[in-house]
């Protein structure tokens, strides 16, 4: 554990997303002092996947959660997926802080079953994420 705390707004956003579907997605970052995880961006319920991906910077790490709609045996379902974005171009210090703080954030988000790690955009295609959901 890195000692980075999880901000209360993060949990509120997750609860609102889960219970009332207020947001399509949300991203989180570690603040400048490396003391707390804070919300970075949220997406309106009609936001698309491309918009979600655009919230991930090329040279820094991020956490994200997104509500994925998918079809299983002809039955429409949705599931919230946790994304850990850690691009090769991010500073090493940043990658370390994000990796060591990830568990404390995930533990606050009760009920997330699927986690996807993205090192570049090829890891975060819709097919890839849906494949991961089906595998669980």
């Amino acid at each position: 554990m890195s000692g980075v705390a999880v901000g209360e707004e993060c949990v509120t956003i997750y609860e609102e997303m889960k219970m009332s579907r207020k947001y399509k997605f949300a991203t989180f970052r570690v603040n400048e002092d490396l003391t707390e995880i804070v919300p970075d961006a949220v997406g309106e319920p009609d936001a698309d996947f491309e918009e979600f991906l655009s919230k991930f910077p090329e040279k820094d790490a991020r956490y994200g959660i997104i509500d994925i709609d998918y079809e299983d045996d002809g039955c429409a379902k949705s599931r919230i997926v946790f994304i850990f974005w850690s691009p090769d171009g991010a500073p090493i210090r940043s990658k370390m802080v994000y990796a060591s703080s990830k568990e404390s954030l995930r533990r606050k988000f009760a009920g997330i079953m699927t986690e996807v790690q993205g090192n570049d955009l090829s890891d975060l295609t819709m097919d890839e994420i849906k494949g991961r959901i089906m595998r669980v």
Partner: protein
Amino acid sequence: MECISELPPAPSTIRGTPSRISINTKTGRYAYVSGKNVYLRSLTDDNKVEMYSRHRGKTTAVRFAPSGMWIATGDDTGVIHVWDTTNPPDDRVIKCERSCFAGAVDDIAWSGDNKRLVVVGDGRQQMGEAFTPEGASLGVLNGHGAEITACDFRPTRPFFIATGSKDQSCAFFKGPPFKFVSSSALTNTVNAVRFSPNGTHVAIVSADKTVLVFSYDAEAKAFAESARLENAHTKGIYGVAWAPQSDMFATCSADGTVVIRGLDCQTITTLQDPLHGTINDQQLGVDWDGEHLISVSLDGTIRFWNIDGGVDKRIEGHQKAVNDIALVGDKLYSVDANGCAHVHTLADGLVVDTALVSGSMPKNAFVSCKNCTIDGEEGVMAANMDGSLYSIVNGAIVAKLPAEGTPIALDTQGAAYAVVSHTGLEIHGEGETRTVARDDLISVAMCEKYVAAGTTKGHVVVYSHDGEQIAQLEEHPRDVTALAFNADGTLLASGDAIKRICLWTTEDWSLTVANDWVFHTARIRQLHWGPSGKLASVSNDRSVRVWDPESRKALADCAEVHLEGAFCVRWVGEKLVTGGADASVKLISV
């Protein structure tokens, strides 16, 4: 994206080793082995091709069941697959997958009722075995002292198996459970054995140029030698096939001829390709179904012989990886790792009329070929590992120019061209040649103003046509393996050995696409800009992808295009032509 037409590879051949080819009359197809794959092709329609790619080793033997419903294939790891030929490739039933030998499978034969198989090869203790198509053993062939190279199953009862071996003898086994009956000595490896369709005779051919015929003696219930002809050909004999009436058979030999013989072994007709003359004409395999007499030569050409003399049709293809392709008008040129250059015609969305480029071919691999203006005519410049550049115009090699060092990459712009070799970069302009001595260059691209070269350190170095360095672009972490300027020279795309493609603006050498084009999973092999400003890429990950520089998005992709890697890509209008390690050339719609 999907493959709309395929030019399949030619059969794999090894000098001095028979090459198996099998015709099935009932389904109108023939089968041969190439690389790790097996190809089924229509006897009448050259564009009807099916591929089987489930073998892990190099495929070495193939034989249709008499019914045509099933086919047995073997590879060099000693594994046999029995699979059905009627279902589409996705629903194929593999009836049996069985490991028979430590070494390669050399020959396969079926009984006339499709219910028994015999397989021979390079085993340590057992060299041949008979079994049912489901895999249950029917007996082991004991009696040869070395690798069994050829076998056949008597199509009528009582069942016999005839074999030929590297121990320089042929033998008969009766069964099941196929027990040794008799053997006859020759003076070299027996290459092929075939029973006549009515089961009364068996023809045996050997590398010692001998043809032997045995006939069935119904009273003794055994086969006895009825004819022998020594020096039947001037070189070793590699294949034999019977006419359906069982009254004559064809033998093929390294002397380049296919000879039709009567039951007394005497020649009825000698067939020879009028275009013969090199060792590439060694005929290593033959099959005959009455209507079609086909043979495989050392260069992989399949010839459909006219029994009255001459060749009706030649089917050509590459035997090794296709390293590059170029398009001049409606002529498509492709060059391979065997040093062969082919010219094809693109018509109605099909690749047709494949022929070898005329002129003396090099023995080394071609690394690249690009469009080039040669003495005012549109042609192709091809770089070869023998240290030469070949100019090809209208399907013929017209000139051979020396290059410094061994060429690694080549690009052209009008009549000018740039070659990257182990010693550096050579830029040939209008009459002038500039060289840049560097030992770390591996790729090159050329436009009207610039020459860009990729290094093993991950840099893209940009030169003027005078050889002066203009810029050094640093973004890739490792080898820059592919480069391409777009049509007006405003954009430069670069691909690396990991998986990434970057896009640069040539105005100020700024990076416009850095982390978006990352969907390949292995080394980028080639990039090509299309007429509508789209970029196509191929990679060792077997796929071809299309990218749009305006939206920075991946537009389309086609996975598993070329097994073991896609090596080259060219736009043809709104379609793509690709080549790869499986030695095939494919036309792909976007």
